[in-house]
């Protein structure tokens, strides 16, 4: 009896010598061989992408390059023709709780009978689950989130009475409510005032300092290197992906934006028409 217990003590449980990592070692977003097509017309070809943790990532490319499509495919909002996108090593449906999505502002009708606070509280719906109403604690969190984006005083205002920049901040506050590790933002800087732009940049830096990863679809080439530390140049395929300073080169931009009708686009057109 005595020896047995000694034995147990020495061999079980095994001694944990290494501290467990706070997050699994997997990268926040790993995409392999991803192709997406609308009505057979491919908009993204063979995307290979590994986004390192804690980076502020700008996704840049011309109109129709598939930037929004890339985000939506990662979020399972549109079907993938081939390939996969893994969030922290898991398919999206198993990693939902770690991802926050900020859709384009124009994707919703802002003349909707809800207040800014109501919209932000939507970020808590998943936590609340079916049938449960937004409670005091979540309302308090929503107010804090609005405070973080600098518009706490507009909490009770109807959303149609907000400026474009304020609406964008409401969307960001809703994402903050989700307390995620990976943020996917679709053009948060589109048509916002200078104050909002600065507020968003500040927020992105705060998130990054907390070790969160942010993927931001961006349009303004003049600011990419100041705002982001990692860059993905996209035009139906990944032209380049890497640290912002190294990736933002004349040659890469030429490849991304130049040569309007390249062979890939022609092929996509042909495929799109092949069943008409």
């Amino acid at each position, binding site marked *: 009896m005595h020896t047995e217990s000694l034995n147990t003590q020495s061999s079980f449980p095994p001694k944990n010598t290494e501290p467990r990592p706070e997050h699994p070692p997997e990268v926040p977003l790993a995409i392999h061989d991803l192709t997406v097509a609308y009505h057979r017309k491919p908009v993204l070809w063979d995307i290979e992408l590994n986004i390192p943790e804690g980076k502020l990532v700008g996704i840049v490319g011309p109109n129709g390059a598939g930037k929004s499509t890339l985000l939506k495919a990662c979020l399972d909002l549109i079907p993938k023709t081939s390939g996969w996108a893994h969030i922290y090593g898991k398919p999206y449906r198993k990693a939902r709780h770690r991802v926050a999505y900020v859709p384009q502002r124009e994707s919703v009708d802002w003349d909707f009978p809800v*207040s800014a606070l109501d919209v932000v509280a*939507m970020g808590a719906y998943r936590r*609340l689950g079916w049938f449960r109403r*937004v409670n005091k604690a979540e309302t308090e969190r929503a107010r804090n989130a609005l405070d973080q984006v600098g518009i706490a005083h507009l909490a009770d205002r109807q959303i149609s009475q907000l400026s474009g920049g304020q609406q964008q901040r409401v969307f960001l506050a809703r994402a903050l409510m989700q307390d995620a590790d990976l943020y996917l933002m679709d053009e948060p800087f589109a048509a916002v005032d200078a104050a909002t732009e600065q507020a968003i940049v500040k927020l992105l830096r705060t998130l990054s300092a907390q070790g969160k990863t942010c993927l931001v679809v961006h349009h303004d080439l003049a600011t990419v290197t100041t705002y982001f530390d990692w860059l993905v140049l996209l035009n139906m395929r990944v032209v380049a992906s890497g640290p912002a300073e190294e990736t933002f080169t004349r040659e890469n931009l030429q490849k991304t934006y130049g040569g309007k009708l390249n062979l890939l686009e022609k092929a996509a057109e042909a495929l799109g028409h092949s069943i008409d």
Partner: protein
Amino acid sequence: MPPWSDILEVLTLQTYNTRLVVLSTSLLGIAAGLVGAFLLLRKRSLMGDALSHATLPGVAIAFAVMVSLGGTGKSLPGLLLGATISGVAGIVTMLLIRNTTRLRDDVAMGFVLSVFFGIGVASLQMVQNIPGASAAGLESFIYGKTASMVHSDFILIAVVAGVASLVSLALTKEFLLLCFDDGFAASQGWPTLMLDMALLGLVTAVTVIGLQAVGLILVIAFLITPPTAARFWTNNLVPMLFLSAGIGGISGWLGASISALTPQLPAGAVIVLVAAALFLISMLFAPARGVIPRLVRQGRLRRKVDRQHLLRAAYEILESMASDDETRNIPLPMDALQGMRTWTPHQLGKILRVARREDHLEPAVPGMIRLSEPGFGEAARVTRNHRLWESYLINYADIAPSHVDRDADMVEHILGADLVSELEADLDSRDIVLPVPPSPHPIQTEPRAEA
């Protein structure tokens, strides 16, 4: 017109004949108001219309089936079951068209609506000719007819309406998310397709139980009018839901009562007309978004702007008349006032009348006006706000001094106390003289040449 005692009896549900009808249309109205609010916010109103028209073939086919099984074919639950099946078939057809072709939604809906309705009308004609069966009355499903309601029909309608209301209230949060931002909802793992099906299911339920009383052509109005009317009164979803349910319920109650009192008026039409009247009242008078309150607010703002322009003009004339640094309240000539802005004599006369009514002016000799004590104070305040704003525009917005007058003209009237104190703090830090700082640009006080 029927006597008051009859009217009272019907409205208070004391007459047995009409009690069931009035009660069922009221419950139906509440359910339609709740479900319709989400249908409207989901922007699927037309889909509801297609759905209701697609129910007609089912009514005719259910009748034929029941007759062939040996019944009279007039059992309401049986007919409504048929209506449900063909309504759902209509929706499925529509979704198939949408998902397999590139036709737009409205084309698919228009197609389903007309084709199913056509099939319905044709099959109604065919079942009329079944020997030994009377299909008379089936066409009442098109326009609605309440007279034939029996107790079991009422129970069916009440239960379905009650369940539909409770389900839509229980799913308020989920439907709100679906209607506002379905992409975000899907990204969060909410089953948006299932929620959409649940919403369409509720619409189907309300439509089908509304067929008998309101008819398939008008039932869509019963779904859409109450929430549209409710939207004028509020900017918040929950009050909108309850208002919509209330408007729907009142429409059903009043409409069916009026129809019961004047039998030549069909209930469905009267119900929809009552709802339309409530809609019209809401559109015109609702304080939040109604047309007339908005016009009143605009008029009030315009009068405020006029008044402030008048007072500032007067103050600036008094400034130019002062021999030393201090501006005093003395009588000033009308001509000078006339020259300050592009007022016609008629407009100026009107503005002066308003100013007199508000005690901003004191009696003076003809051709002159004199500000009252409060009027002078207000004039100084208004001028000060204008100048504060002008300095801000020059210093921060880099607007040329020759332009700031016009820009400030637009903004000064809506300056709130908080903005003013912010401007003050800012100007204070740059040693600008208060209370009324000097104008940053020359003021023209000579009468302007006539154009």
